[in-house]
């Protein structure tokens, strides 16, 4: 039994080392293009901070990668989150959205944050400062409301 156990551990260690050579692509690019959300909308400073801490890692073209995020298979899980997050909403490409899509997205942003669906729980486990307080949620939703009204009324 002892021998089988040793072999098993050995195999797992080799496998673990091997998968480190198969890493997903990093999501990193110039974030502040003209399509970037914060460049298109007038955003109060504290809301900017909220977005940066709590949203951009998955919902922009620029993810921050702490050391542990580069260890497989964790790196693969993170990559999945980023791919799915960007597909759903990408703040770096906000300018590409049609106006009605912007309005809809703004509405959804408030909703998912109010429902505590976002940020993801697994993300919050590793980023405690990314959790939004009730005040932050309220401020975000009020801003969303004014902004959608402005979008609807502008030429």
């Amino acid at each position, binding site marked *: 039994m002892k021998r089988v156990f040793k072999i098993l551990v050995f195999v797992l260690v080799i496998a673990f080392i091997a998968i480190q050579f198969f890493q997903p692509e990093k999501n990193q690019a110039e974030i502040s293009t003209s399509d970037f959300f914060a460049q298109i909308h007038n955003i109060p400073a504290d809301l900017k901070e909220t977005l940066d801490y709590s949203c951009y890692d998955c919902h922009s073209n620029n993810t921050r990668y702490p050391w542990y995020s580069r260890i497989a298979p964790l790196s693969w899980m993170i990559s999945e989150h980023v791919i799915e997050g960007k597909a759903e909403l990408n703040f770096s490409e906000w300018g590409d959205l049609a106006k*009605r899509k912007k309005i809809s997205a703004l509405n959804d942003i408030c909703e998912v944050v109010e429902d505590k669906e976002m940020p993801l729980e697994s993300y919050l486990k590793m980023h405690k400062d990314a959790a939004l307080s009730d005040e932050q949620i309220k401020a975000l939703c009020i801003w969303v409301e004014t902004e959608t009204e402005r979008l609807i009324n502008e030429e």
Partner: protein
Amino acid sequence: MMKRVIPLSILAIGLLVAYVSLSTPEDSSLYEMNLQAEDDVEFPAEVAKLLENSCYDCHTTASKNDDAKDALDFNKWNDLKTSKKISALDGICEVIESGDMPPKKYLEHYPATALSDDQVKLICDWVEKESESLMQEKKK
């Protein structure tokens, strides 16, 4: 005296019952299940038909599906402000395009409620037009 009282009483009761049942307005919502749309919601006929057929079972006030009603209740469409309408419209096209709606379990029981590609396109085209018109409307 007694010989008359009883039949007269029965007649009186009978008349009373008839009067009450005839004067109480009929509750038509009992008959129309969940398919009755809000009277003043003006969806184009083709779109309204599709929505009624494939969506109203869950997405109206009479539905017992609370999650569905929270997400969208067509009977409350006119209560939504413009930005929420635009958002709901976008959501409608998205979920039917992705095949998320109607839900698979629901389709298993009611296959006739499935939306064909053409029907999805019809609804999505309407969503786009309606959103544009809602945004234009606001500027008046």
